[in-house]
């Protein structure tokens, strides 16, 4: 085989590069994120329920937000009737964040854990949080 | 064939490394722009397109000009272009790549570039521009590579290449027509609102692009064993001459309409560019430099006795290229924005970061060009002496 040395050297570099995320995180323990739901508004709710079921929101909230966004901006439909027939005003800043006024303890918890950076907050103003 | 770009003289590698260094500096500067926004450029609310879009427009012309070699060679069987046509096709590849990069660096939200494809909008000329530019890039890569590959093996290109070559002819015309339509259909921008815009674009393209090609061919001949052919270069020189005269003629038509009609909206941009308006005259020296260089180049080109001297031809081509670069890569865009929609003058001048990014995009183009030409020249050096027949 020609250039055996070069090829092996290349493979070693590739393997080191490709496995970087694994060895660079060895020994670091990341706790499972537990977003907090204890905001004053949520605590006062009679039925502690989001616009859809918890299971649905966990998996699909990003799609739901996209649908909300397109509906409000592009079609001018700013009311959401959920699968149980309940009405909600479509607004990230004024509806979602009204209950979830703890962005750091709610949104950021999972987003940081999953290393996703949604760009919602470059435009939408996050709620003022009380220093704990 | 690509392996030919990986072996080369010390001079070749020095050039490549210099280009890479310039690209690196530009990339770092671009990261700055990416973070801070286009506020680091000289662009403003009133002059919202500038150097980047000017370069884009100019380079679409350079890309389209490959057709000036393809038509004589493939349609009229003008054999003398046999060796040089590949240089034209690869120049087109490099130019279109620069066009796409200039659009990219001009965007406020470049990460959303796929929106143009995800939400296709046929009523937008920009949508069509992205379609024709992408298509033209593909066509030239495929055609250039296939014909060169055939040359290497000393055979004819495969049968499927011919239809693509014929398709590339109207396609080249289309890329510059569509680019002209970006400007020529906007209400309220009187400077651009002119039916001759596309024709003028094509004329300037068929002068500027082939002029650059002559310069490149002379450089290639000087530094390699590959000779594109003296007669081929002279033939391109004739194309450049006619196209440049047509271009200047079209510009004079525009000036006549504006000046004789005296309609303020039509005259003001010309006044601003050539004499200054309301005390603002930043572009005046540049525009006159462009005019003088245009005249110089035409004088040098129009007399066959001067044109036949290759150093004079090179000089004429450089003068012409610079003239058109100023006129189309700068004045044409800025003139559309000055005066603004309120008949007020806001001037524009590129900033340092903007200039660095612009130079480094050119460096990317030159790097692509260098690599492609290296491949083409190496193949041609190997097959030197073998008569080509497509």
């Amino acid at each position, binding site marked *: 085989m020609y250039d055996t040395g070069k090829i092996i050297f290349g493979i070693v570099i590739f393997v080191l590069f490709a496995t970087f995320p694994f060895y660079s995180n060895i020994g670091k323990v990341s706790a499972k994120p537990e977003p907090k739901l204890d905001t004053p508004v949520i605590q006062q709710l009679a039925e502690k329920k989001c616009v*859809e079921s918890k299971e649905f929101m966990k998996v699909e909230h990003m799609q739901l937000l996209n649908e909300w966004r397109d509906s409000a901006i592009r079609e001018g439909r700013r009311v959401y009737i959920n699968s149980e027939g309940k009405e909600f005003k479509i607004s990230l800043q004024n509806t979602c964040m009204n209950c979830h006024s703890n962005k750091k303890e709610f949104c950021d918890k999972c987003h940081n854990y999953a290393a996703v950076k949604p760009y919602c907050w470059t435009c939408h103003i996050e709620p003022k949080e009380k220093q704990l | 064939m690509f392996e030919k770009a990986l072996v080369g003289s010390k001079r070749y590698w020095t050039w490549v490394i210099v280009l890479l260094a310039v690209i690196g500096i530009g990339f770092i500067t671009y990261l700055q722009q990416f973070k801070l*926004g286009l506020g680091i450029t000289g662009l403003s609310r*009133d002059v919202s397109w500038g150097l980047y879009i000017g370069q884009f427009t100019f380079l679409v012309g350079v890309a389209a000009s490959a057709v000036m070699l393809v038509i004589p060679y493939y349609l009229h069987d003008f054999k003398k272009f046999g060796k040089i046509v590949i240089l034209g096709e690869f120049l087109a590849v490099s130019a279109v790549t620069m066009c796409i990069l200039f*659009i990219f660096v001009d965007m406020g939200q470049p990460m959303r570039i796929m929106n143009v494809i995800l939400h296709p909008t046929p009523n937008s000329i920009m949508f069509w521009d992205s379609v024709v530019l992408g298509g033209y890039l593909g066509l030239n890569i495929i055609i250039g590579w296939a014909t060169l590959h055939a040359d290497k093996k000393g055979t004819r290109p495969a049968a499927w290449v011919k239809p693509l070559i014929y398709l590339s002819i109207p396609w080249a015309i289309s890329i510059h027509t569509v680019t002209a339509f970006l400007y020529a259909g906007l209400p309220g921008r009187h400077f651009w609102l002119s039916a001759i815009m596309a024709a003028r674009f094509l004329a300037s393209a068929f002068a500027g692009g082939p002029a650059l090609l002559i310069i490149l061919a002379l450089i290639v001949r000087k530094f390699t064993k590959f000779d594109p052919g003296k007669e081929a270069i002279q033939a391109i020189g004739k194309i450049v001459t006619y196209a440049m005269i047509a271009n200047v003629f079209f510009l004079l038509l525009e000036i006549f309409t504006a000046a004789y009609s005296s309609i303020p909206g039509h005259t003001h941009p010309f006044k601003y560019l050539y004499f200054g308006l309301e005390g603002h005259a930043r572009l005046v020296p540049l525009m006159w430099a462009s005019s003088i260089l245009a005249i110089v180049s035409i004088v040098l080109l129009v007399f066959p006795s001067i044109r036949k001297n290759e150093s004079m031809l090179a000089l004429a081509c450089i003068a012409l290229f610079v003239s058109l670069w100023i006129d189309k890569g700068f004045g044409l865009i800025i003139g559309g924005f000055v005066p603004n929609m309120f008949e007020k003058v806001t001037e524009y001048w590129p900033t340092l970061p903007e200039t660095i990014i612009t130079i480094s995009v050119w460096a990317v183009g030159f790097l692509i060009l260098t690599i492609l030409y290296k491949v083409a020249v190496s193949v041609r050096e190997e097959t030197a002496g073998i008569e080509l027949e497509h």
Partner: protein
Amino acid sequence: MSMDRREFLKIAGSSTFLATIGIGAGWILSRPGEFLEASQFLQTKELLKAKQWAMVVDMRKLKTEEDYKKVIDACHRIHNVPNFDNPKDEVKWIWLDTFEHAFPGQESEFMPEQMKHKPFVLLCNHCENPPCVRVCPTKATFKRKDGITMQDLHRCIGCRYCMAACPFGARSFNYRDPRPAIKEPNPEYPTRMIGVVEKCTFCEERLAKGQMPACVEASNGALVFGDISDPNSEVRKILNTNYTIRRKAELGTRPVVYYILDIPTSVVPGGEGNV
């Protein structure tokens, strides 16, 4: 079965290519459209409806500097419009300029001084045939059913083609991060981000709540808002009884912001009757 290297690479290459396209297409097609069958999107009950919203600016009713300031502040404050204090990066939705700049070509040396110097209130004309919408390559700016020329800032790629196309200079680009230039952000309305183009939206978010645009509300009757396709609307009544002009109507974009000029009554006999 035997196969040379070239053949193998051809098959491998083309199948990878096809698979990529297939997966990509599958992904796009399988994206949830209406993924919750029972859910619905509706308009608000309070929404003010129209076929084509329009505005009349009655220049006679704008008198003091305070009158102008109230109108502009009302808009810029609630919409988090930044103030950069330099014309290069400037963002504005509603602003002032003189007659000769608002109506270039219409001015005359000898027009009444009062008209020459009095600032006009300028904003997006929400054209019926908007060039900005025509040129946008992503449909980020579009025409709503009620005639508002709207933009979807989530989709804008910042190419600024709309700024080149708008004959009214109504569009602003975010050359810099707007956040630091907003003094008191309105927490109920988003800001914008670097690299998108913005403009007046005729307060569509207020129309959804049954409210008039903020500038209209703050104008003390100088700005009148209504449905121009409804013959009984207030704007139509005003247009029927007053001489109005529009900016650059000759370009065919059909702007729907009309201006009643403040002509000194001595010039137009009976002009008083209009006040």
